[in-house]
């Protein structure tokens, strides 16, 4: 139903996955993560990869739905390692990579 897509494995903020811009939407509630992502997408070049970090459960469903409505492609969603202990006030964080429509 709502499993992560693509390869699963922890990715640090400096890890291999993100290429291009990173949007930090951790701690934000719906629809803010998608709005932040859309703002970044608006300013990015066509075909660019934008990564969004999120904690809100609704983002798991709404980022792919937004991408489908806009013609973008979700590459993968993987668990995000917290950069520092004590940042976990909002529950587990995830990183989703989106390739913008070209």
């Amino acid at each position, binding site marked *: *139903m*709502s499993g992560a897509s693509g390869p699963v494995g922890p990715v640090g903020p400096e890890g291999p996955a993100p290429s291009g811009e990173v949007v930090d939407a951790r701690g934000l*509630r*719906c*629809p*803010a993560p*998608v*709005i932040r992502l*859309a*703002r970044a997408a*608006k300013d990015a070049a066509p075909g660019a990869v934008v990564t969004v970090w999120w904690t*809100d*459960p*609704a983002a*798991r*469903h*709404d980022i*792919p*739905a*937004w991408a*489908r*409505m806009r013609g973008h492609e979700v590459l993968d969603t993987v668990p995000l390692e917290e950069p520092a202990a004590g940042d976990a006030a909002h529950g587990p964080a995830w990183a989703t990579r989106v390739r913008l429509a070209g």
Partner: protein
Amino acid sequence: MRTYLDAGGRAPVHPVAREAFLAALDDGWADPRRVHAEGRRARLLLDAARETFAEALGARTAEVHLTPGHTASLHAAVAATTRARRRVGTRVVLPAVERAAVIAAARAAGEAVVVGVDRAGRVDLDAWRAAVGATTALAVLQHANGEVGTRQPVAEAHAHALAARVPLLVDAGASVGHVDVGADWDVLAADPPDWGGVPGVGVLAVRARVRTAPVGPEDEDPWAPGGVSVPAAVAGAAALRAVLAERAAPDPRAALVARIRERVAATVPDVEVVGDPDHRLPHVVTFSCLYVDGEALLGALDRRGFAVGSGSACTSSSLEPSHVLAAMGVLTHGNVRIALPRNVTAEQVDAFLAVLPEVVAEVRGAVGAGGL
């Protein structure tokens, strides 16, 4: 002036139900299990209500049980049928878009085997059929989804369940009183407040051929320990008789739903109208607006006099959005869920459609999401 567009599961009380409820307070207040004249009078009213439900559902009166409400019906139906078949297995097969009460009951009773749905919310019938087999205790398929209006292929599902000798539970809580639910079920739950009854009673029909083993402490009435509200049962039956007698074909609300689906898509930018466009309930319609906070949208509509529902996470007590929208893979935020009450007018729907685009624009503008 208020316009109520959130009638799913709790419609405005039908005038006939109100009258019947008040009359039953006078004549049916006594405990129907007692054998004196007052108790017998209440018993007669209760039996007449069950007869009405049985006739409307195409069941025998002995097959109709009354419960404290729809959630209680679903909990008891899953628990009692699963327990009776524990030698066969404990698997309960159900689509991901069943009511939360059904999913929770399946998890409590045994192993919930959840089957996916397509973008319209229709069950993956091949996967459902493949899952319903020799070790299945209970198969579940709602008649129609009350959140998005999509009707399910219950006839095909029931044919398979019969062949596999697995009982089929059909949650018809969003359908009874609105559409003919047919005979493709072994256990069927109906929800009186959804068609204009008074809250406090549920209807559960169990075919005589289905074995059940009630769960819980022993009681004279295992489906409603302590008994049910006689006035609520009487009111629910009176409302059902009334709505079935009033029902026109086609339901005039179907044209209003089609109009909402068409106008919302045409006048609100970045909106996703969800659910099956054709095979659907005549009174339920749902859409999601991109970049919109569902709670803010409901509040803004409420201030303008319109009551609507929502499956967005921010309108629920939990952080989780509607599991139905999530399973369908559609946008969960900015969601508006409409269930038209029976007496809704075209003018009310048009008034809603007239304010909606500006309300959505206002809510988007407030978070700086216009033009994204």
